[in-house]
């Protein structure tokens, strides 16, 4: 187990570096730049001076190495647009994103697993068939349109919930206010994620229930309740851990889109805004944080799986 963990950890380091390199290349090799949109009346000398101050006049490789060296010291550089340290900007925005994504993930896991179990318990029932249709619809609806519709109906027409933001501006902090702001974005994210979980739980449970050893257990007179609770469910839920790891990039994607729709002051909007202004340090910093969190999440999921399922551990060790 320890050897497996160390091996995976050692592989994650070059992967992270490779990804930041790719990001750097995409961000920097592209046409345009922070000075491309500047006033054409700016003198060439001033332009050169600005490039020198921002460090943009050096060869790309030097710039990358300097950036990476900074990252190793925990310094992501300063934003071109605000002059603030990028790490400070990220730590300021991260809690909002984690709040939204955490709440959405938690609710969709509970609802998705619940519905998946129910559908597997009564396959072919009205619930199972309704879930199949809902899955198809949930997979097909663009999440930003769902958000726009939710605002249209519940905020604009009926006024039940605020249309956006994390809290009402200019009011004292209150849990009720925060909660009301969470409802619409979380609901939209949950509607998009639940089909994934319920479908997997259903398929995995139905497959497990046909296992030979469970048929044998049933033949020996083991109660249906014990078969479900002690054997089928635990075995069916282990693969969900891997899926959970794979969901992390999806969560970031969801963050960019949902935060834009609901004006949620999180990392996704910080990124979106930084991209429009060619704020290289900000864009790279957020990409690096997203990549590290994603890789760490996948690693954690794989290790948890290996812990839960000894067969996986054996196979990967060889």
């Amino acid at each position, binding site marked *: 187990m320890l050897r497996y963990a160390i091996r995976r950890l050692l592989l994650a380091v070059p992967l992270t570096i490779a990804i930041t390199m790719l*990001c750097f290349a995409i961000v920097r090799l592209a046409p345009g730049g922070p000075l491309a949109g500047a006033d054409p009346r700016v003198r060439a000398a001033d332009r050169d001076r600005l490039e020198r101050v921002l460090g943009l006049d050096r060869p790309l490789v030097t710039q990358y190495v300097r950036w990476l060296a900074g990252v190793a010291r925990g310094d992501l550089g300063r934003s071109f647009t605000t002059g603030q340290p990028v790490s400070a900007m990220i730590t300021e925005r991260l809690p909002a994103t984690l709040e939204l994504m955490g709440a959405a993930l938690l609710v969709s896991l509970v609802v998705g697993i619940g519905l998946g179990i129910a559908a597997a318990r009564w396959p072919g029932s009205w619930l199972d068939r309704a879930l199949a249709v809902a899955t198809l619809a949930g997979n097909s609806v663009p999440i930003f349109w769902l958000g726009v519709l939710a605002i249209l109906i519940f905020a604009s027409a009926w006024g039940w919930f605020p249309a956006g933001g994390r809290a009402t501006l200019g009011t004292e902090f209150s849990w009720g206010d925060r909660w009301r702001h969470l409802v619409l974005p979380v609901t939209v994210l949950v509607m998009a994620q639940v089909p994934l979980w319920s479908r997997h739980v259903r398929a995995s449970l139905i497959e497990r229930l046909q296992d030979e050893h469970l048929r044998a257990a049933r033949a020996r007179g083991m109660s249906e309740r014990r078969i479900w609770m002690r054997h089928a469910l635990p075995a069916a839920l282990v693969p969900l851990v891997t899926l959970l790891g794979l969901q992390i990039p999806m969560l970031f994607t969801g963050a960019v889109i949902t935060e834009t729709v609901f004006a949620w002051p999180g990392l996704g909007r910080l990124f979106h805004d930084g991209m429009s202004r060619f704020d290289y340090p900000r864009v790279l910093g957020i990409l690096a944080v997203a990549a590290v969190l994603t890789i760490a999440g996948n690693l954690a999921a794989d290790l948890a799986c290996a812990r839960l399922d000894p067969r996986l551990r054996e196979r990967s060790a060889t």
Partner: protein
Amino acid sequence: MSGLRTRVATRVAASVLIVFAAAGVFAPQLAPFPRDLIRLENSGRAPSALHPFGTDMLGRDVLSRILHGGRVSLVMATVATLVAVAIGTLLGSLAGYFGGRVDTAISALVDTALSLPLFFLVLLLGQRWGASVGSLCVVVGLASWMPVARLVRQTTSSLRQRAFVDAARGLGFGTARVLARHVLPSTAAPILVASALGAAQAVLMESALGFLGFGLQPPIPSWGGMLREAQSHLHDAPWLAIFPGSCIFLLVLALHALADAGQGAFDPRARGERHVGG
């Protein structure tokens, strides 16, 4: 009973797809108004007989823009899917056919690509090179070849052990010929299913790019871009958001339904089992 229902659903989905395709192809003939005709005195009109989907803030006819936008979406989805299917089929068949180290390397590549926050990279690429339809297609295709690779790898590796492949090899055919003439034709069905799923994904991704403002730039209409413009007028002109969004939803739904029907008709898993037995 359920078979009949599936058949009806499949027909409906296929019809929707054909209608969308026809609307895209004949958009210039079908559109009641020119795409970019601005008539400020007509701005923000609700749906009426003259403008069935209303007009936008510049007084442009929404139905005409949706027809032209659909044309762009369909071309994009088709080309992006072709890119994804080409990459996925090549890598997947190599991994499945050769197995061993080639398989390990390609599978690792697929897993890595699946675990990246790829959408961020697509956004970046879309912003920098996304101004044209062609480059946007390549970007979306590059981000969505992984499921195809997985599916083709799975099918190819189960085909590899079949007698007719052995026979082809035994006749002294080279690897390229065995793969192209004997193995890949048998993977056509799952590739078709994967293409439908990939096309659905491409439509969603392109509209998300447009919605975030990194897709095709105005005045070229795209459904995602129209939703973006609609966002600031949700209260006074909801039809601007309702119609383009419904189009994305319907098109993606039809593609998913067709993929589901295809999967039922030639389920790769069921096929795999039969191969092991026979």
